[in-house]
């Protein structure tokens, strides 16, 4: 697909410079803005969610289209990236081989974005008896080819080459970094997804020692799996997700015993290996933000959703890591440009000083474009750092 796009208006810094400056806790020309867009273009142009997932050329076109349609923003997703995420041959949160992800055009309509089925209660992927099996046999036996087949796996190297090509295009042609080139979660979160959250919460009380044993057993493999995929594509950015150990799920005691040491180990290893690390923290982490001070300084960006208090995060972590958060996804669907502008300004007022801030949120696929523009334009005008 070829189309000439209107060139993006030039600014004092490129997006790559702006993002790297903010991450190193210095002030760039303006606050970087990143709407985390997944399948949204499928609601606006003649490309389906299935094509965004499976056709790297069409998905690259879709992401270039939305980038230009919104007048440019600072972090992008490379075409084909979604395929690499969901057709991941390693046991991971996004891998349709291991986790019950319904994918567009397969178990869902062609225009429905992927959905995670939490196989809780009576039909979990992993039973409570399987903890020992993991220690004896690892995780590969859990692979299920119902949702993604062997045929999908054979396409990986071809699509991987496309992703690499499009990644280079974003970084060098557009000067925009691509994030989430790879993604991992710690063993605790992986087990929670495999067991189903409800079952796993009971296991935490019933078999805490066994869970710890499995986490110890898996941690080094999980670290390697995360690095493997991304090194194949010569990628630079790795997302470490945190989904089931926040204050919305577990006590500090369980967080400290079963989550934090492993999370710290993964993040520290990736930073030391030279990756740009993105932390993606779902739900409410406000009461445990101070633990993040134990991670390497000035190297990490952390995304929080609206359940974590970003102002508290700025206070605690402002001199330590780059942050993003406090915007509710539904604001972009239900809200108005004026509401978005007001909230963007509030975040800039309270969190921009000294750098270390990206503005943005996970964007629902049915968001209104004028709301996205309101956020982006506010960052480009109100978010300018005055020297």
């Amino acid at each position: 697909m070829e189309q000439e796009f209107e060139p993006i208006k030039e600014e004092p810094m490129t997006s790559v410079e702006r993002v790297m400056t903010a991450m190193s806790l210095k002030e760039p020309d303006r606050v970087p803005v990143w709407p985390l867009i997944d399948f949204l273009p499928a609601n606006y142009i003649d490309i389906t969610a299935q094509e965004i997932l499976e056709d790297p050329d069409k998905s690259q076109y879709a992401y270039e289209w939305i980038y230009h349609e919104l007048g440019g923003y600072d972090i992008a997703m490379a075409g084909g990236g979604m395929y690499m995420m969901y057709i991941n041959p390693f046991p991971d949160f996004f891998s349709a081989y291991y986790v019950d992800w319904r994918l567009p055009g397969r178990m869902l309509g062609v225009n429905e974005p992927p959905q995670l089925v939490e196989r809780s209660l009576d039909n979990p992927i992993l039973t409570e008896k399987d903890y020992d099996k993991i220690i004896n046999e690892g995780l590969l036996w859990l692979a299920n080819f119902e949702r993604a087949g062997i045929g999908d796996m054979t396409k990986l190297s071809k699509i991987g080459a496309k992703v690499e090509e499009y990644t280079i295009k974003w970084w060098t042609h557009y000067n925009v970094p691509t994030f989430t080139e790879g993604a991992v979660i710690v063993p605790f979160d992986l087990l929670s997804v495999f067991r189903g959250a409800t079952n796993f919460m009971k296991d935490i009380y019933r078999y805490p020692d066994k869970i710890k044993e499995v986490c110890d057993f898996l941690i080094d493999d999980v670290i390697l799996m995360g690095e493997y995929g991304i090194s194949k594509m010569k990628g630079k950015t790795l997302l470490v997700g945190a989904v089931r150990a926040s204050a919305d799920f577990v006590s500090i005691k369980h967080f400290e015993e079963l989550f934090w040491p492993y999370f710290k180990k993964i993040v520290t290893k990736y930073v030391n290996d030279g990756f740009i690390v993105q932390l993606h923290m779902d739900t409410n982490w406000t009461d445990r933000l101070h633990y993040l001070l134990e991670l390497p300084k000035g190297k990490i960006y952390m995304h929080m959703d609206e359940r974590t208090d970003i102002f508290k995060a700025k206070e605690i972590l402002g001199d330590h890591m780059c942050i993003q958060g406090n915007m509710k996804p539904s604001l972009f669907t239900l809200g108005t440009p004026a509401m978005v502008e007001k909230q963007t300004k509030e975040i800039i007022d309270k969190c921009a000083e000294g750098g270390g801030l990206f503005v943005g949120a996970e964007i629902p696929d049915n968001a209104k474009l004028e709301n996205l523009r309101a956020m982006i334009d506010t960052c480009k005008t109100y978010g300018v750092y005055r020297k």
Partner: protein
Amino acid sequence: MSVKDELYRSVVELEEEKVYSLLRQLLDSNADPREVIEILRKAVELVGDKFNKKEYFLTELVMAGEIFQQSAKILEPFLKADNEQEKSKGVVVVGTVKGDVHDIGKNIFITLLKSAGFEVYDLGVDISPQKFVEKVKETNANVVGYSGLLTVALHSMKETTEALKSEGLRDKVKIIIGGLPTDEMWMKEAGADAFTDNAFEGVKIVKRWLEVG
């Protein structure tokens, strides 16, 4: 500490095995099963209070619900033998709406509703408006709960309310929506009467509506 006090304490402290052995001890000594289940209910309520005060977290809430459910199974034959059936405190129909399959919150809400003595119908996930309508008709429900996490769920919630309206059922039920992103904006859009991101609070709302406890 009496055995009954000890039972209450061990539910609150989530000492699962101890709860079951105390239960058997009480039943062996011919304790009134109705009184025992009330003790369990009060203990689960205290766990909920601790959850609201952030002394406890979701894991503890889930565990307390599980202990209650397992205990209720142990008590069931004794309650039945007691002849007089326990009266339901109201009928609640709950489901995750069409297009969404998230059910962690829904399941906890259901467990807590049951432990509070409600008759609950769990429709499951990805539930069409028509299925909600059918179940409400069939059960004469007092309350309907829509669960959802994704923004698409909001649209389905709205459709479900429309469907209840067109069947003339809207005025017969109270509607509560639940899920982490729900707020006043969601509630109005969905045509609901209440919203919550907290399963325990949700149960309190239902209790208020049905004037229980």
